[in-house]
C-alpha cells in the first residue's frame, strides 16, 4: 500500500521536476546560460495563477493561462534585460562571462522573490487543482489532478521532442547547441534562435510552475529550493543532456519521496544532495554528460 503510494506520488513529482529542469537544461545546451532565477520564474507563474483564480475569481483555467503568460514575459525580461546585455558587454572578459551571468541571474531571482513576498506575503499558497475529485488506483486514493499533472507534463515534453527533432526550427536549435559558429556562417541569426529558446523556456517554466503550485503548493520562500533542485537535477543528469535530465529527475524525485515517506519529511533533500556530491566527485560530467 505504502509502496504504491510512493510509486504514484514519486512519479508525479518526478515528472514535474523533469518538466521544470528541461527548460533549464535547454537554454544551457543551446546558449550556454545557467539561469539561477529559474525558481523565481516558476513561482511567478504559480502565484499569478493562484491570485487570478482565488482572489480575482477568474477561475483556474484563466489563472493558469495568465500564470504561464506572465512567466513567459518574465523569462524574456531575464534574457533581454540581464543575460544579453552581459553577453554583449565589452567590459566583461569572456572567461568571466559565465560567472557574471550566474551572479546577475541569482540577484534577479532574489528580486523576484522579494517582490513576490511584498505583493503576496511569503505565506505558502496552493493553486486550485484544474480537475477536482479522486480516483482509486490499486487501493490508493489518488487525486485526479495528480494524474492530470503527469499527463500534461508528458504531453508537453512529447511536443518539445517533436519540435526539436522533427521541425526545421528545432534542427536549428540542435545545430546551435553543437556548433553555433557554423550556424552563423550558414546565414542564420543566432540572436533569433536564442530568443526562440527563451520563449520555449518561459513556457516550460510557466507550465511546470503552475502545475507544481497545484500539487506541492508554492510561495516566495520556495524560490531558492526550486532553483536548487533544477540545478541539482541538471548537473546530476549531465549539463545540456535532455535524456540525462529526465533520468536524473526521476532519480531525485523518487529518492526525495522515499525519504519523505520512510524517514522524515524534513530530511527529504539530504540524500539527493549527498548523491549529487558523490556523483560530481566521481563523474563530474554527470550521468549522461558529454563534456
Amino acid at each position, binding site marked *: 500500500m505504502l509502496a504504491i503510494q510512493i510509486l504514484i506520488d514519486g512519479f508525479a513529482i518526478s515528472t514535474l521536476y523533469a518538466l521544470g529542469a528541461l527548460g533549464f537544461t535547454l537554454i544551457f545546451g543551446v546558449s550556454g546560460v545557467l539561469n539561477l532565477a529559474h525558481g523565481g520564474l516558476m513561482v511567478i507563474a504559480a502565484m499569478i495563477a493562484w491570485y487570478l483564480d482565488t482572489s480575482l475569481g477568474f477561475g483556474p483555467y484563466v489563472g493558469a493561462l495568465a500564470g504561464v503568460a506572465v512567466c513567459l514575459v518574465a523569462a524574456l525580461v531575464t534574457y533581454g534585460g540581464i543575460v544579453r546585455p552581459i553577453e554583449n558587454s565589452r*567590459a566583461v572578459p569572456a572567461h568571466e562571462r*559565465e560567472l557574471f551571468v550566474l*551572479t546577475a541571474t541569482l*540577484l534577479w531571482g532574489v528580486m523576484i522573490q522579494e517582490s513576490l*513576498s511584498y505583493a503576496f506575503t511569503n505565506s505558502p499558497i496552493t493553486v486550485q487543482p484544474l480537475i477536482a475529485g479522486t480516483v482509486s488506483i490499486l487501493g490508493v486514493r489518488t487525486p485526479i489532478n495528480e494524474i492530470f499533472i503527469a499527463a500534461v507534463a508528458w504531453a508537453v515534453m512529447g511536443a518539445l521532442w517533436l519540435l526539436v527533432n522533427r521541425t526545421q526550427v528545432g534542427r536549428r536549435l540542435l545545430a546551435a547547441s553543437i556548433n553555433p559558429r557554423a550556424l552563423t556562417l550558414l546565414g542564420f541569426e543566432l540572436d533569433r534562435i536564442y530568443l526562440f529558446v527563451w520563449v520555449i523556456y518561459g513556457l516550460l517554466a510557466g507550465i511546470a510552475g503552475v502545475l507544481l503550485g497545484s500539487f506541492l503548493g508554492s510561495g516566495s520562500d520556495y524560490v531558492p529550493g526550486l532553483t536548487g533542485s533544477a*540545478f*541539482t537535477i541538471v*548537473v546530476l543528469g549531465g549539463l545540456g543532456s535532455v535524456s540525462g535530465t529526465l533520468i536524473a529527475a526521476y532519480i531525485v524525485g523518487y529518492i526525495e519521496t522515499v525519504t519523505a515517506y520512510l524517514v522524515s519529511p524534513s530530511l527529504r533533500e*539530504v540524500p539527493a544532495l549527498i548523491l*549529487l556530491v558523490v556523483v560530481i566527485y566521481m563523474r563530474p560530467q554527470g550521468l549522461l554528460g558529454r563534456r
Partner: protein
Amino acid sequence: MSTIPKSRLAALAVFLIVLALFPLGANGYILGVLTTAFYFAVFAMSWDLLFGYAGEVNFGPTFLIGLGAYGAGMSNALLGLPVPLAIVVGALAAVAGGVALAIPALRLSGPYLGLITLVSVLLLQQAIVIFAGVTGGEIGLSVPDVLSISSAANYEYALAFMLVSGLILFLISRSSLGMILQAAGQDQVAAAALGFNATRHKILAFAVSALFSGLAGAFLVFYLGTASVSAVVDISIGVRVIIAAVLGGRRTIIGGAIGSVFLIVAGELLRPIGQLSTFVVALIALVVIVLFPDGLLGLLPHRRGA
C-alpha cells in the same frame, strides 16, 4: 607590481585615523552597524582572493564562515575553551573545510564547482539542524563568553581585525602567489607549462581564504554572542558576500571591504522601507554588475589595468 602614490598613501592614513577615532563621536548604533560591516568586509575580501585571483566560483562562502563560527562557538560553549583558543579552533575547522573544497576544485570548474560549494552550504545547514542537540539547531547556539560588552571596544577589535586581514590578503594578492593564481585561473595549462605547480597554489588559496573567512566567522560569533544559521550559514548571507565583493570591484581585495560597508550601511539606511530593502539592494547590485562590471572601484579614474 605598481607603487601607490604618496598622496594616496597619506589620504589613506588620514582616513584610517578618522575611522579609528570614530567611537569618540558616533553612538552605539552606528558603531554596531560598522562592526558587522567590518567582519563582513573580511568575508568579501577572502572570497575575492578565490574568485578574483584564482578564478574559482565559490558560491558557498558561508560554508567556510559557518565552520569557523560554529567551530569556535561549540568549543567555547561545550568544551569551555577560552575565547582566543576557541577562535583558533574555529579557524582550523574552516581551513579543513577549505582544503576539502579545494580537492573538487582541482578537477571541476565553473558551474560544477559552483554547485558543489552551494551544496556544501546546504549540507552544513542540514547537519546543524539534524545535530540540534550540540549545535543549537534552528534557534542558534549562544556562547557564554563575548569579546567585550563595550561597543567602542568591539568596534576597535573589528576595525583592527579587518585592517590586518585586508593588508595580509592584499599583500598575498600582489605577491607571486596572486600572480600565479591569476595565471592558473586564466589558463591552467599555460601556467603549468611555465613550471608553476597550480595544484599547490590553488590548495593554498583555498586554505588562506578559508582561514580568514573562519577567523571572521569566529570573531563575529563572539561579537554577537550567538551562532545561528540565519547569521552565518544561510545562502542569503553568502549571496550578500558575493554581491559585496563584485559591487566593490573584483580582483582588488579592497573592493570587498568597500562593497561590504556600502551594502551594510545601505541596508540600514533602507530599513524604513522594510521588506523592500533587500529588493533595492539586489537591484543596485544588479545594475552595477550589468553596467559597470568593474564595480565601484572601477569607477575611479586611472586604476591599474589588471
